[in-house]
Structure formats: C-alpha cells, structure tokens
C-alpha cells in the first residue's frame, strides 16, 4: 500500500512538471510534436529510474557514511552526468534499436533539473531503496503523462488562430498554467 501511495503521489499529486514546476525547459521545448514528446517521456523514464537507484546508493554508502551530506548536489550532478554518458554508450553498442528510438533525447536529460530534483526529493524524504525506486519511476511517469497531455493540447493550438503577441511559447506557458491548475485538484488525495 505504501508503494501504491508513493506511486499515485508521484504521478498526480506531486507531479514533477505541473505541481513542482521542475524541468520546464524540456516541457516547453519538446512538446511541440507528439512524436518528440513520446520519445522524451520514454527517455526520462529510463534515465530517472537509473539515476534514482545510483544516487540513493551514492548517498547511503558514501555521503552518509562519511558525513558529507552537504556535497549531495555537486556529487549527484557528477554521477548523473556520467551515468547518462555511460548509458548512451552502452545502448549504442548493445541495443542499437533502443538507442535509435531514444536518440537525441538521452544527452538532453544529462543535467535535467527534473531528474536532479526527483533524486534529491527521494533523499530528503528518507525513502528506503525500494521506495526510492518506485518514487523515481512514478515521477518519471508523471513527467511523461504531463508532457504527452501538453503536446496534444499544443498540436491543437497550432491550428487555432492565436493573437500574434501570444503565439508559440507564450500561449504554451498560459496553457501550462491552466493544466497545472487542474492538477491542483489532486492535492490532499493521499
């Protein structure tokens, strides 16, 4: 039950894009086309789960052990960046099909604040390893959900007549705000 709660909270209530407002750059940047949005969502799920596991271990076995908590941010950046590079190389060699699918999105998330934020949240909530894993996955799913929803809306907006000063990113931000408002209604569910 605990894991289920973590999952629901991660996907809806504390949605990383629409409730915590982390990772706005890819949210606006890769949501113009459904195809790109889906690719990005897949890549985030992949990377975030990996990063969640590694950072938990780094925190537990290095930082806590040597009482160096204040180095969390800087060491996580280093670890996540290396991890993504490593995963990219590994995929390119071993699973070329998946590499071709995730393609350019992998390096894009190297220093994505959504990934970073989710990892830091896991630590601050003092999750166990399994909980951290579920929570990373749910944040990633929430990210994907929001991104794909948003891409669908933006594809329709493209067809509408938008006043010139509001075109493109501006109307995107306005829309994002309205969607975020609707996500507020999940508050207090768990």
């Amino acid at each position, binding site marked *: 039950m605990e894991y289920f709660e973590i999952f629901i909270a991660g996907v809806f209530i504390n949605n990383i894009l629409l409730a915590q407002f982390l990772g706005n750059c890819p949210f606006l940047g890769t949501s113009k086309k459904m195809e790109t949005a889906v690719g990005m969502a897949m890549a985030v799920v992949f990377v975030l789960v990996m990063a969640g596991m590694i950072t938990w271990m780094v925190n537990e076995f290095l930082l806590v052990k040597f009482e160096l908590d204040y180095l969390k941010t800087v060491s996580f950046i280093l670890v996540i960046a290396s991890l993504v590079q490593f995963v990219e190389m590994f995929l390119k*060699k071993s699973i070329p099909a998946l590499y071709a699918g995730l*393609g350019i999105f992998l390096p894009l998330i190297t220093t994505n604040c959504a990934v970073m934020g989710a990892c830091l949240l896991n630590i601050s909530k003092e999750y166990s390893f399994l909980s951290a894993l579920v929570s990373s996955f749910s944040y990633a799913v929430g990210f994907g959900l929001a991104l794909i929803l948003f891409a669908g809306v933006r594809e329709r907006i493209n*067809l509408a007549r938008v006043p010139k000063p509001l075109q493109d990113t501006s109307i995107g931000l306005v829309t994002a705000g309205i969607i975020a408002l609707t996500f507020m209604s999940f508050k207090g569910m768990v």
Partner: protein
Amino acid sequence: MLSALLLMLGIGALCGIILSLSSKVFYVYEDPKIALVENNLAGANCGGCGYAGCSAAAEAIVNGTEPPSLCIVSNKEGVEKVAEIMGVDAGSAESPLSYNMCEGGNRASDKYHYMGITSCKAMGVVFGGKRVCGVGCIGLGDCVKACKFDAVYMGPDGHPVVIDEKCVGCGACQQSCPKNIIEVKTLSEKLMKFNQKQDPLAPCAQTCPAEINIPRYINQLKEGKYKEAVETIRLRNPLPLACGRVCPHPCESECRRGIEDDAVSINQLKRFVADYEMNSGSRLPIKCAPDTGKKIAVVGGGPSGLSCAFFLRRIGHKVDIFEAMPKLGGMLRYGIPEYRLPKKVLDWEVGGILDLGINAFTHVKFGKDFGLGSLMASGYNAVFLGVGAWEDYSLGIEGENLNGCYTGINFLQRISSGEKLKLGRIAAVVGGGNTAVDCARTLLRFGLDKVYMVYRRTRKEMPANEVEIVASEEEGIEFVFLAAPVKVVGNSEDKVTHLEYLKMELGEPDASGRRRPQPIEGSETLLEVDMVISAIGQSPDASFKEQDPLPRMTELELTRWNTIDNNPETLQASIPYIFTAGDAATGPSLVVDAIGGGRRAARSIDLFLKGEEVEPVVDSLQQKRIHESLFASVDGIKKSERAKMPEIHVNQRLDSFIEVDLVLPEENAKKEADRCLNCCRICYNPDFPISK
C-alpha cells in the same frame, strides 16, 4: 575538508575511469567522414532537412541515402565541400524537385469558402479537407508559407505552382501539405510512379495502359505550352508519334464529356503535340538521371523493348537493345502498314530514343545468334525479354499451304521489309482483327481487283478498331460475315482457286461475352479467290527456349499460349533476372499496353538492380477504376462538336501508301483541348457554372 576533497576526487576519478573504459569496451565504429561532413553543414540543428540534428543528417549523407545537397541552409561552397569529402561531383547527385500532383483546374476558388481558417493543416484536421474532393489541393497555401526559398507561389487558379529553378528539394512543402498533393520527387521517382488507388486521377488517366497524365498535357496544350505537353507525355510514353497514330485510345471511352456529349479526341491531341515537336525541326532535350553503372540487355526492339530501354536509360542505367530484324520498331515497323504509321516518322522517333545513349544491335536473334549465357557473360545485370508475338496461328484446314496462301504478320512483315511478293487478283483475308484489316487494306493498295474479309462472326464482334473498319469499308473492302473457312481449294498446279467456307449463325454468348458462332449444316459455299491470307491471331515465337544452350533456360516457364509466364504485377519471369512485357508476355495486344508494360518492367528491373525486393506497386491501380470517379451523369455540359480527324480522300488512298490520317490544324487542336473538362478524381471544370 580533506575528506570532502578526497570524496569528490574519488567520485570524479571513478566516473572518469568507468567512462574511459566503457568508451573502449562499447566502442562503435563511426565513419570518420561523418564528423568531416558534419563540420561542413550549417550546424544550425534546424531540422529543415528532415533529420534530427546535423549529425543525423551527416550520417545519412555518408550512408549515401541523401545527396550532399541535403542541408537546406548551407550555401553552395558548403555543398561542394561535402561533395568533395564524399568523393562525388556536387552536381551529379539527383536533386529532387517539388511537384504538384493536383490539377485543380480553375476550381480552387469556387471549391473552398472557409470561415476563418487560414491554413491547409487546420482545414485538413477540421473537415478532413473534404469539401469537394477527398484527395485534392485545399489551396490555402501552407506549402507557400513553408518554402524558405520562394520557390512555390499560389498560382492564378488557386493551387500552388513550383518554380523548378528555385526549388532545392528540401521537402518543407511536402511536410506541410496535409493532403500529400505537393511532393518532392527526383526525376527517377517521377518516371517510376505508377497509378495508385489514392491518387488524384481523372477517369482517362486511370484507363490509359501507359498511365499518361492526360488532363495535364491537354491543359498545357490549351495554354500553348506544346513542349511541356510533350514532356508530360514522355514521362510515361516514349512513343507519342506512333501512339498518336495507331492507339485505339481506350482513354476516350472513359472520357467524362463522353457521358453527355462526344468524348474529347484525346489521341489526336497527343498526335498534335508530338507532330509539333517533329515538325519544329529540333528535338526537345530529354533529361536523364546520373549514371548508375548498371547494364541491362533488352531483347526485342519493339514498343515494349523501346519503352523499357527508354525508361531504364532515363533513370540512369546503361541499356543495349538486341533486335532480330534489320531495324528497330518491332510490330510498329513490320506489322503496321506505311499508310498508318510512315516509316519516316517511326525512324525519327526511334532515333530520339537511341540518342539518349542506348546501343542497338540489329540482325541478331535471341537463341540463335546469342543466348542468355552470352548476355550474362558480357556483364549484363538483368535481361528484358520483349520478343513480341510473331508467329501466326494456322487455320488448321486443308490446303492452307497451297501456292497463294500467306499468314498475316508474316505477310505484313515481308511487305514492310520491301520483299516483292507474287500477289493475285482477288484475295480473301481470314480474320477480324487489326492484322486482318491491315492485310486487306495493304492488298487494296497493291491494286488488287477485289479483297474479301472473311470473318466468322458479325461486324459488331470484330475486334479491330472501329476507325479501321470504317476506313476499310470506305476503301471498298467486301466483308463476308458469319463464314468459317473449311478448305482452300487449289488447281492441278497447286495454285489457290477458291476458298470454301461454312455459313454460321450466332448462338449463346461464350466466356468472352461474344456470341459463339455455330456452323449451319450443309451450307458450304465457294468463294473465288487466288490468294488467301489467314490473320486469326499470333503467339510468341518461343523457339529461343530450345535453341539456347544455357541449361538455366529450361527454368523459364511458358504459358499454354506460348507466352512467357511472369508475375502480372512485377513482370518478373520465373528466372529472377528476366523481366518481360508486351505481346511476349500478354499475347497480341495494344501498342500502348506494351509501352506501359515496358515501364513497369523498368521499375522492377531497377528494384532488382538495387538489390531490393521486387515487389508490386502498393495499392496499384493497373487500369482498375476508382469507383467514386465514375459518374452516371455529368452536369454543366454544353454539347460541342468533336474535332473531326482530317484524312486524305479515298481516291487518293488506293494507289499509294501515303499516310491516310492527318494531324489536326493548330486552331482545331486548341478548340478540341478546350472541350476537355480538366477532370480530376471527382471534380471537373463544367462548361457553365452549375447552380447548387
């Protein structure tokens, strides 16, 4: 402090070591050219080329799937540098051009009245673009806005016009079009396009076996762009002069005007523009794609062989034609008499095809002078067999080898070769097809007193072209219908004196829908003649199969009509590198069928040479009709007279072989072109506005 430093150093070193190790372990070879090419691209990562970023584009260029000119932002120097890295000539890669498929006529303006929507894409989403036509141009100009090079503008008729000189083939317009009307295609792709079920095709263009874009060339004729009209025809048919003279124009029977009025005289218009080119004294240049280095042998220089060779050459392959007769042209030369298709005209047309750089070897017969083995040994990558159907069926009756008996194609061929045959005074031609009519009309021109045509059914069932039958009636040929020859009677010197036939009556319809003639008992009748020509059909001469010493030849399968068995959609024979079309594959048929088949075979050969799967065209139409485009009635038609074919008077015809049918005068041709409704799939230009 020290521990913090040590920890960061440790993590950093560990990450560094793992990454450097894994870069060795997971090393994937990448062509160093990719980096070089990428350095010379614009580096804008704009995606205008259709690839995700410049490195993906560079990879595609290095893999050879895209030309060096792929990048839409980089300038000429950049393209040249990329070409240099790739070791190709910058100009040699086949550059695609934007091409508008929808004719639209003058209808775009009255077709669309959208409320507030300003883009085709929106229109396509909201209404599916289905105001009038499901596949037609929406006409709001998304492609014009998408083009960064000002190469597309909205034409006066409300659909986009492409300026070829400015187009760089970036594909932006194609991506912006929700209806796939504007497409970016290379010349080869245009030449190898076949009618598909979803295409915007007028009924005539669906019917034409060569799949010529008929409304387009008639429209070009109307606008006085005769050269462009010839070019449009040449995308599908290399023999417009010959076809313009001998084609029985199946297209005209599907003409939409023909539903309410007389059909447009499409074939005469084709002949008009083709003759215009010939009479202008200079040949229009025919564009070919860059050389591919592949070599194909075309066996048989008839219409299918010429067509196949023409299209293979135009898409960049090297082609050699092998012909058994002294000159190229096949049945066009040896089966169609001078008065229908003058040899001078044919020579001019064949000359134009050979000028593309096609070699022709004449007087060499497949199976006898060379075989499959010698072709393969000479380095040909594929073989096209278009040997035609040159063997006459025999009547199978007593006395048909008597002195004075001939067979149809054999007779015509010997006449065309200039042989002096001993002719009689009164002749009977047995058969009702075009060959029979050609024999009869030829005999008349040699000054015979009387020529009978003996046919076992009636005039209605005659398979010959209607115009040919009318002309032969005018020229005084006597028809003996419902007569089945049973015996050729000869005298003591084995000379023909009579043809004996049984009278027939029509019974129940047979499989072909024609009523089967049945003999009337005891109705034997004698017809006094001294010459009998039997022209009751032909089959291919497949003697090459036995003559060829190559054991592989036994794998070539024939049908029970002696035609070469092939896949009807890809035209590939039972030996994978042999392709076949024309009469050799279909049995005796139309010139235009052979031309269409030649092009279809060229497509399959191209696929075969590229090492791809030889697969049929997806959703291929192949003369099937698009149901929604066939109308029962047509509104807005004002009856107008169809242009009459000018011809020389009967008195002048009989003592010479000069061409009977003449070309339309320019004024009449334009008037006839005006009768064309410029149809598309379901729309057309009515003569007067239809109130709805």
